């Protein structure tokens, strides 16, 4: 064991750096999904589509800015603008026009409504953005690379991957924690998450909270997509693979738990990149194995609270 570490310790360190960036992106998407699930109790399959549309929108705005001759830093404004636009327009639209009609329906129907939305939005992306890969990497290029020492060698990492992604994720985590615990609106969201009936009985306007939370969750998904867009090329189908991973995070984290989502994302990110180095055939199943293992030990998820069954 010690020998193995001596040999592979450095590689493990590199894997950690990669895992961090990956975890940051996973977290951005999963935390929004988890927040929405906490309040609406709907597993929103269309969350992945919001991620994809956020990415496409941010890239389009970024390309437009570049075409206007704006400096690369404007790319960052494009990311935020894209996320805000998608969250602010699509979020309320989906919640008010579709989801609101099915509250009180059986879980499976609510879930399927979002599945239907997912199918519609997937084809819509194709109609709007076509099928050729779209990319816009000026935000990543603007920051250049950082040489990370590796034995006698150095390995270039992009500063975007090393600092921006984890930085935004940590800021989101801290900001969300502060928002949920210290602001009135945040506490209301927590109250509804914990016990919707009681919260409504106390006079909380559940309709408003629901709209707000969904919009917020949609914006987080779109921001995740926007953040991912400079590092990847956007093609049809990126939403489908993102969402299924977020499902695993939500169940592992515990419902509505943002710290749980952060820890789970970190576990998944690290586990995945370690797998790429040492057991590539496990790469895809790592998130699911983590989930099964966690639920075996903690049936309510990492940070989940046992829901009191009233008798």
């Amino acid at each position: 064991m010690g020998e193995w570490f001596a040999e592979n310790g450095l590689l493990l360190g590199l894997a950690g750096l990669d895992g961090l960036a990956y975890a940051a992106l996973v977290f951005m998407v999963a935390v929004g999904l988890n927040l929405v699930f906490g309040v609406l109790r709907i597993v929103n399959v269309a969350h992945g589509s919001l991620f994809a549309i956020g990415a496409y929108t941010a890239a389009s705005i970024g390309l437009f800015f570049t075409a206007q001759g704006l400096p690369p830093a404007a790319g960052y404004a494009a990311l935020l603008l894209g996320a805000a636009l998608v969250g602010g327009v699509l979020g309320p639209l989906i919640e008010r026009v579709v989801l609101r009609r099915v509250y009180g329906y059986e879980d499976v129907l609510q879930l399927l409504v979002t599945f239907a939305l997912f199918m519609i939005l997937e084809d819509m992306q194709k109609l709007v953005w076509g099928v050729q890969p779209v990319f816009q990497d000026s935000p990543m290029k603007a920051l250049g690379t950082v040489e990370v020492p590796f034995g006698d060698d150095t390995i270039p990492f992009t500063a975007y991957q090393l600092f921006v992604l984890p930085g935004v994720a940590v800021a989101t985590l801290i900001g969300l924690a502060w928002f949920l615990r210290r602001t009135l609106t945040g506490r209301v969201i927590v109250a509804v998450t914990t016990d919707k009936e009681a919260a409504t009985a106390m006079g909380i306007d559940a309709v408003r909270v629901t709209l707000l939370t969904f919009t917020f969750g949609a914006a987080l998904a779109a921001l995740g997509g926007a953040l991912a867009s400079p590092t990847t090329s956007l093609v049809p189908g990126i939403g489908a693979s993102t969402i299924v991973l977020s499902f695993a995070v939500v169940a592992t984290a515990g419902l509505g738990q943002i710290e749980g989502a952060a820890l789970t994302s970190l576990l998944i990110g690290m586990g995945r990149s370690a797998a790429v180095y040492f057991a590539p055939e496990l790469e895809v199943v790592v998130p699911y194995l983590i989930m099964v293992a966690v639920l075996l030990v903690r049936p309510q998820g990492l940070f989940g609270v046992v829901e009191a069954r009233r008798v």
Partner: protein
Amino acid sequence: MNRQTDVSRRAAMLGAASSGALLWAGEGARAQAQKPSELRIGITTFLSGPASVFGVPSRQAAELLIEQINRSGGIGGVPLRAFFVDEAPGADHLVGEYRRLVQNENVQVVFASISSGSCLACTPLSTELRKTTLLWDCGTQRVFEEGKHPYAFRTQGYGTPEILAPLLYLLKTKPDFRSIGVINQDYAWGRDSWELWKAGMDALKPGVRVVAEMFPRFGSTDFSTEITRLLATRPDVVLSTSWGGELVTLVRQAAERRLFERSTFVLPVAEASMQSLGRAMPAGHVIGARGDHWNNHPRPKDPAAMARFVDGYRQRFNEYPIYPCHHMAQAFSALQAAYAKAIQTKNGGWPNDQELADAFRGLTFDTPTSTITLREDGQGLEDQLVGLSSQGERFPFAVPRDMVIFPAAMVSTPVGQKSVEWLKSLKPDILAQMPAPIAG
């Protein structure tokens, strides 16, 4: 045989009034054919999902070609009409669609599939339903090496030449490489192409160290971990047969982190992604096109035809055609040639399914760049053009320089042999047969 008719008769009786239907549907491939009012073609291609990157341009090419052919009188005076089918929902859905095309839309020919999985699922059906099927883009060597398909023909090259040509090119231009890392998509093509490459490489240059074998999930959007691993292990050569959005992402992420400065890349399917990458594609790496149809082909057989197709496509769709468009054009070219041959054989009569298939066997047809011959097993022989990536004035994206045109027969597995076995039996003297590079 007796047993079969027995069961058949019983089923006919069981199925109440169905005996009529059995006769009707059992119409043989040898029945006399009437000249139809239109020549119906079923085309399966990816219209959704990640592979629509190939599927949609090829559909556009097909529509353009059909218009052109119909404007000049169709085939044998019969106008063409295409029925497109999306491959994305999977093989089980596609085999149903294949049946629909044949049994309901009454297509005369099916152009089947980008995905190897789809081809493997469709070719047996071509035998069952006795319908001529052109494998217009899929590359798996398994189709014709593991079975006989009298009604299936591949109007382009396939995995073995598409891998062997870049390998030979690498061995010739960078003979002293000692280590290699591979990063392929995790599906049949990614796996098969590595197996082919490894077999050839071990035969022609034994002792190359494989420092990383990575098969990230099909549809991956991030390769930073894989790139870090390649940066850390410093292979002389990085092979990737990836395509589409994944190749674009891989190249951009690798270029940003200067992996292209440490290792020589070999990208056999690069051509389709060059436009998306534009100036982001680094120069001096081995790139292939699954054929010989690079836009800067040094000596196309019919430059006018090449220009007509490329310019026509560009005018309509505002982008250069990529290799699936060329493969689609090859399928149409083969179709025209085969019908011409069959109609001539029949003295002007319209061929039935059997006669049409007979016309395809051994057929030679023109492409803008060369000619392709369909061997007796149905496999087409397409030349391979490989070179080093370079950026220039003429195109806003990378095209090859120092191009080598590999004659198809040189790099294709002989009929009746299996690719991996054949590659293992290669001797280094094959390098001596390699034509000289053309500057471009």
